[in-house]
């Protein structure tokens, strides 16, 4: 019986103007998205990424001629790989940094002669992980805009269409009086509602399916991107998530439609709900949330940094302790001088590192807090889920930074273990005279890489997927409950 009603609904929908409109709109947008992606967006970003990584490799090669230099200067720039699924969710990648930098900055030299001692040494600071704001955006004068990716096409346009498909499903039949006729047959109300849902759901899946198919065909035909099995699986999960997301709006439509006896009333209410939850909430919360949690400004951070560094300097330079017993550049150097200088330089690097890490963590926490609030909107939940699955967006960026931090440790461990292999070295980490001066085999240096597997991305999206499914179930129950109790006349 459900199937009977669904079939009738589908046939009815297929001949309607709104179906043709949805089909054309989704097809045009999906094709446009794919064409823009393969013709310029992706090639440009890939070219930029490979140029950047090549430069990074070259500079790493240069540094590998001397272990101590590599240890001081660090691994260099770590670039964030571009996800091949960017066409599904751009994830504001243009506004997020494209790399972190494992590099030092600043060099110093001191020469002094006093009656007691004379000292001269020049050095550069030890490397630490820095988080500059280099994005791939070229022109910041262009107005902010939403990328035409799947999250826009499905999250915004399809959800709107889902409302247009269901707003009059019940209220329209009540208006024309056909609902009471329908109910006079021996069909249960739940069957009618489910039939109506299935009808609308299957009809709306047609344009979605055709659009997605066209989109993937163009992307695949370009040979620019060859999606691996894991990536296809992720695309599959994204499609299912999209279907669940659309069903939320279909159930919402049925729920509201059951409440009204005229279809214009239900449409108006639905439109207002849609505007608030899909358009407004995701777009206002950023401003609101930044007011709740304050993060220190850049100038404040540099002030704190300077204070901490001064404190370290004062401690070490008290009574010229640092200079009195000799210089690391003496030949041969005294081991206690090397240790003292290594402690001094490490403390500096650690202080900077800790401060920057803490600051970045706070900034990230603020973003996550804002994301929590925007999860009031199903469109935002959907966007975050798809971004996680596509390997873009803020969650991915955070994971990238975490990877970079783990790599930092890996790199340090590598330097220490290489150094242990050299018997001429003093094994003092980290002052350049205290480590091996021999070259390092370039291939043995651990390289930064980031693996995005189905399991990792699915794990990241699990919360949002669960929320989507629960929301769909909730609205389903609400619609059924309301429909059970309405007066069909």
């Amino acid at each position, binding site marked *: 019986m459900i199937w009977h009603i669904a079939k009738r609904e589908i046939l009815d929908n297929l001949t309607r103007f709104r179906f043709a409109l949805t089909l054309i709109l989704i097809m045009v947008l999906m094709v446009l998205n794919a064409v823009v992606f393969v013709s310029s967006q992706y090639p440009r970003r890939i070219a930029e990424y490979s140029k950047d990584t090549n430069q990074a490799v070259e500079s790493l090669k240069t540094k590998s001629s001397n272990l101590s230099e590599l240890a001081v200067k660090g691994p260099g720039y770590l670039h964030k790989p571009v996800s091949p699924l960017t066409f599904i969710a751009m994830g504001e990648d243009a506004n997020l940094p494209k790399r972190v930098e494992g590099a030092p900055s600043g060099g110093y030299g001191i020469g002094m002669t006093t009656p007691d001692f004379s000292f001269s040494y020049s050095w550069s600071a030890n490397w630490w992980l820095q988080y500059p704001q280099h994005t791939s955006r070229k022109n910041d004068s*262009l107005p902010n805009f939403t990328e035409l990716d799947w999250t826009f096409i499905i999250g915004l346009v399809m959800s709107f269409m889902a409302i247009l498909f269901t707003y009059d499903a019940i209220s329209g039949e009540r208006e024309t009086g056909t609902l009471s006729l329908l109910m006079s047959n021996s069909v249960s109300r739940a069957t009618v509602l489910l039939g109506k849902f299935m009808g609308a759901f299957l009809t709306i899946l047609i344009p979605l399916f055709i659009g997605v198919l066209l989109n993937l065909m163009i992307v695949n035909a370009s040979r620019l991107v060859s999606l691996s099995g894991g990536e296809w699986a992720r695309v599959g999960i994204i499609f299912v998530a999209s279907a669940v997301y659309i069903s939320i709006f279909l159930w919402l439509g049925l729920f509201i439609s059951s409440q009204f006896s005229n279809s214009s009333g239900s449409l108006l209410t639905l439109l207002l709900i849609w505007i608030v939850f899909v358009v407004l909430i995701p*777009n206002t919360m950023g401003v609101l949330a930044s007011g709740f949690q304050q*993060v220190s400004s850049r100038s404040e951070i540099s002030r704190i940094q300077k204070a901490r560094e001064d404190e370290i300097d004062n401690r070490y330079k008290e009574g010229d302790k640092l200079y009195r017993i000799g210089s690391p550049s003496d030949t041969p150097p005294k081991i206690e001088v090397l240790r003292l200088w290594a402690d001094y330089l490490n403390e500096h690097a650690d202080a900077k590192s800790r401060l920057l890490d803490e600051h970045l963590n706070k900034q990230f926490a603020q973003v996550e807090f804002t994301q929590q609030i925007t999860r009031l909107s199903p469109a935002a939940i959907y966007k975050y889920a798809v971004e996680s699955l596509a390997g873009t967006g803020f969650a991915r960026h955070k994971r990238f930074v975490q990877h970079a931090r783990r790599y930092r440790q890996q790199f340090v461990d590598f330097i220490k273990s290489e150094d242990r292999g050299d018997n001429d070295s003093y094994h003092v980490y980290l002052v350049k005279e205290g480590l091996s001066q021999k070259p390092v085999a370039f291939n043995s240096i651990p390289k930064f890489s980031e693996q995005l597997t189905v399991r990792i991305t699915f794990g990241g999206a699990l919360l949002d997927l669960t929320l989507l499914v629960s929301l769909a179930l909730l609205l389903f129950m609400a619609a059924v409950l309301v429909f059970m109790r309405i007066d069909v006349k």
Partner: protein
Amino acid sequence: MLWVIIRREITANILSFRFLMGLLIYFSLIVTNLFVLTRGYEDRLQSYQTAVRENEDRISQVTRYSEFGLTHMLKCDRNPKLLSIFNEGVDKRKGNTVTVAHGYVPAVAEQHGSDNPYLNIFSSIDFTVICQVVMSLLALLFAYDAISREKEAGTLRLALSCAVPRPTLLLGKYIAGMVSISLPLIASFVAGLLVIQFSPYVSFSGSDWGRILLIFLLSMLYVSLFFLIGLFLSTRTDRPSITLMFSMCVWVLFVLIVPNLTVLLVEHASPIQSEEPYREQARDQWKQYEAEVKDYLEKRGVEGPLDRANFGGVGARSGVNDYDSGETVQVGGFENEEGVPFAQECYGFKENLRAQYADRIWQIRKEYLDRNPNRQSLLALNISRISPAAVYYNAAAIFAKTDLGSFWRFMEQTRQYRREWVDYLRDEKIFSSRRWFTTEFEDPIDLSRIPRFNGQGEDIGNSLQRASLDIMILAVLNMLFFMGAFISFLRYDVV
């Protein structure tokens, strides 16, 4: 007769469900939004004031003039625009501090860096965007069934069977609709203004009030356009549900899709070329400059300007980037006092030449900016005019002084300020003064005569002139749709 129709329509509208919903949503949105944006403005104002103070502090530490060349360059800070509460435009996004030196013509602005840059991933909306999205939708919702519903219900026939001319009926419906929509608009506007007034940082000047009024009138013009589109569509169909469908399509297309699409198209159809060739040219210029200076010194038989005055060398810090160069020199005392005037002469030549080269390099950089980012932005602006929503936003940004043109104006002012500064340095013969390089004077430099940056805002007449094209587009579209609705309605089959 017109009055009767208007009164009847207004009563019907105000009592309707959509009016209540619209008023509620619109009101709460505007009030919370203006509250939040006012706080944002306060934050930015504070960070601007801090920046200005820090700048003065830095200048007051200067003991020799060459410090202005590199280590203590002058800074121009851009004040946040008060009316950015209504329209953020590019005010928040663009940099707000600019460095100026005789060896550097400013072309880009940096951020104070007061906030969390990662929050940029969240788009934000302001008063204008709410108006752009919600008010246009509300206008369509009020208009879509104005004619077709009455036809469906059969009341149109009754109304026209009286001695009411069709134009009067249409005009009545238009005026009544506009009055009903402007009620929530005015109410939220007034409430919003009250919220803003509570802030201790905000005080509107006379011209601000004028601009607010202009933004309000512009919003009305925009809303009226969408009302007329709805009315027009309503006279083209027999059933309100079809009108509604069409109206929604128009709305989704022009408010949501077209403004996003234009940026995308422009970014991909007219991408920005590499800046490297221009940087290369600029670097060549600096090399030429170095060669010229070297030549000048060699002819005088020295390697450095201070060679005759001081044999022990000189503390100097110099920096050359692609587009700028500067040098700060420091000499404690002189071994040969007679060599000092010669050094002064040399620095006079060298720094004067540096300023000239900086001007030449600015021309190179200007060419890049004009051909690439600026051209792209202008193109995006022009193409976006396909959508009335974008036209409205641009015009409102001009009135709020937050549009790109206002930012460019600020940048032009900073360059004007640099010219003043260079003229001052030349007129006072500071390049060839003893205080250019020596630290023998402990007391700071007399700052009172140094020109200060004073970014004058645009006057209201100028803004009106710049916005006139956008206003005209909205007005013409209004007229077109009114005529369209009028002609359609004259031929409308009322039965």
